[in-house]
């Protein structure tokens, strides 16, 4: 496993134009030694899944502020599965109401972070998520 580096995709689905949070997280992940593919604003679920496949990432991190998480996230998860990317972990940051959290986790979202979460906590969660998926093989 020499030279193996965590590869992660950071994307912003939906139509809102705020990517400050996503950029801060991207930088924190880079500073933790990860290779971060940053795709920027207004990504459709199709674009996210395609990029995740081509880049062969371990984790997909999505920043959602628009409130459209209950339509966007199931679609991303479905596409990832259709492509055969069963190991890839999906992390979500943004404003997600408490009542949606259990359903999202059930669908396969690994972790959800509210606005202003300490970046070190997020970095740690990324590392742990990949650790468990690697252990599973």
């Amino acid at each position, binding site marked *: *496993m020499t*030279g193996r580096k965590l590869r992660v995709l950071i994307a912003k689905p939906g139509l809102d134009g705020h990517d400050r949070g996503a950029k801060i997280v991207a930088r924190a992940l880079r*500073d933790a030694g990860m*290779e971060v*593919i940053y795709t920027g604003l207004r990504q*459709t679920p*199709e674009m996210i899944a395609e990029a995740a496949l*081509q880049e062969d990432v371990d984790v997909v991190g999505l920043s959602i502020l628009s409130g459209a998480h209950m339509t966007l996230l199931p679609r991303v998860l479905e596409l990832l599965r259709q492509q055969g*990317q069963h190991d890839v972990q999906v992390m979500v940051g943004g404003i997600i109401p408490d009542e949606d959290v259990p359903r999202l986790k059930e669908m396969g979202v690994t972790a959800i972070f509210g606005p202003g979460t300490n970046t070190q906590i997020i970095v740690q969660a990324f590392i742990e998520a990949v650790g468990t998926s690697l252990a599973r093989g």
Partner: protein
Amino acid sequence: MSLAAKVMAGDRLALARLLTQIENEELVGLDCLSDLYPHTGRAHLVGVTGAPGTGKSTLVNRLVLHMRSVADGKEAEPATVAVVAVDPSSPFSGGAILGDRIRMRDLAGDPGVFIRSMASRGALGGLARATAGMVQALDAVGFDIILIETVGAGQAEVDIARTAHTTVVVSAPSMGDEIQAIKAGILEIADILVVNKADIPGADNTLRFLRATLQMARPMRYGRGDHIRDQMEADGVMWEPSVLATVATQGDGIESLSQEIARHRAHLRASGEWAVREGERIRSEMELLLREHLTAQFMTRQPDGRFEEALERVIARKLSPRQAIASLLEGEG
């Protein structure tokens, strides 16, 4: 099905995984690459390099869009295109932010396009090798054109330029690029020069400057009289780098650039230089592998600590590096 068979059958996930294995120099990936090797050698490898922020990714986006919309030479179908976009790793953390895809969103959803980002990982020569391996895999699965975007700053770019058949050097006005380009010796590796952001004032100056510099470099480059050079050019034996203006954000000049890239390929084929470059590239790849292999073999044969001992003596200036190696080799007998 073996990994190689899956990749050749067009399984894009398998291809993506293979690219990771090659990048990490994992044995399974390198073995698979050997299986694929007979299928390589068809793609046109095009390097796109230049200073940070000159618009390389925006240009690649437009270029690929254009290539995907027109027939490929005599073929009725457009060429299929892969992009390998290299960005620097952070020297502090070893991590990287790879942001070239931001500018390539127009290419999403096209099954004839495959984009892969990679970090330079700071290894001398290693970048070129990993990139070359990844490019070979993309070549084997049948992409007609492979664009390799790298930031033009140092040795890595020169290495990548050797990997590519055609090297496009991108600069932009009023950034002091012209000076930087010459300092890095990057003009010497350029087959095509692009002044992007031609919508910005000062573009004319940059164009003029680059054309004049090329003009000056011409006699030195070839060391021949003008009439002979003109004749060679007319015969298609010699390639004269051209300077093109583009506005990547609007798509201006993209068609000319695409045609110039195709013209360079035709030149390489017609002049026999394609085969010459190919031969040189493969020779240096084999020599490098041989060197690494012999070094590793030698090291495992050395009794523990013998190399370190010699190293200490060289550091203490009791031996020269040449003497140290000579004595180590002698002990081999």
